[in-house]
């Protein structure tokens, strides 16, 4: 794929430069407000992954990989999974696996509310974002090998 190797045209690059930060920010917003408004860790994580995919499609592999390398993505993904599991295990302090031990703190309808739900959202978003980016990267690298072969 020549486009991904060298990036796309200047128009696409400029638009990407302007929007990619906003997309990332929107993803983070969706994650943090998951317990108040529609969205949540999963949708936000996909948006974060899409912002990196966007970068990669417009500028080619190198630029995106400089921001988030492949082993790094894999590590973040595992860390997200472990964080989720750890939150679940910390529930044992309240007596049960997955017990919402922070409930009752904070005001409803504020960011700091709903106990472990925002924490879980963050863990899921890390996992989903990094994981899907890793998947996309694996698919792109498949194409590269194919090109070598021909």
């Amino acid at each position, binding site marked *: 794929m020549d486009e991904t190797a060298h990036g796309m045209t200047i128009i696409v690059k400029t638009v990407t430069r302007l929007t990619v930060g906003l997309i990332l920010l929107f993803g983070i917003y969706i994650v943090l407000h998951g317990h108040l408004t*529609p969205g*949540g860790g999963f949708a936000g994580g996909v948006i974060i992954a899409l912002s990196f995919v966007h970068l990669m499609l417009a500028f080619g592999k190198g630029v995106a990989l400089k921001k988030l390398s492949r082993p790094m993505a894999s590590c973040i993904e595992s860390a997200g999974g472990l964080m989720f599991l750890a939150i679940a295990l910390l529930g044992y302090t309240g007596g049960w696996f997955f017990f919402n031990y922070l409930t009752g703190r904070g005001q409803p*309808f504020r960011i700091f509310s709903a106990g472990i739900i925002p924490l879980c959202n963050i863990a899921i978003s890390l996992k989903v974002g990094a994981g*899907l980016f890793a*998947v996309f990267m*694996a698919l792109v690298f*498949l194409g590269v090998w*194919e090109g070598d072969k021909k």
Partner: protein
Amino acid sequence: MTVYLLCLILFLIGVYCILIKRNLIKIIIGLGIMEYGLFLFFVLVGYRMRGRAPILEPDQIIADMVDPLPQALVLTAIVIGLATTALLATLAMRLYEKYGTFDITQIRKLRG
């Protein structure tokens, strides 16, 4: 009732595509369509006539909201669908790399 049947038709179009089509990408598309029919059916089951979205606002008296449980389940199912699609797409690409085609009739190394 009619909506349920329409959903079932969507589901069956997907099943038809999986069973009849002889192309790897077409099979993945069929799975996707089947899953869409299923998700829609699940959400329809929990819909309440003239209900509200299950999101509270400050100082709101709890009125009739739609059933949040099917929505939560469908959210899970969507992720599972995405996972399956990603894995299948990778398998299809690897097969293309090996055989140079997506046509299943030409990818018959195994005896049925």
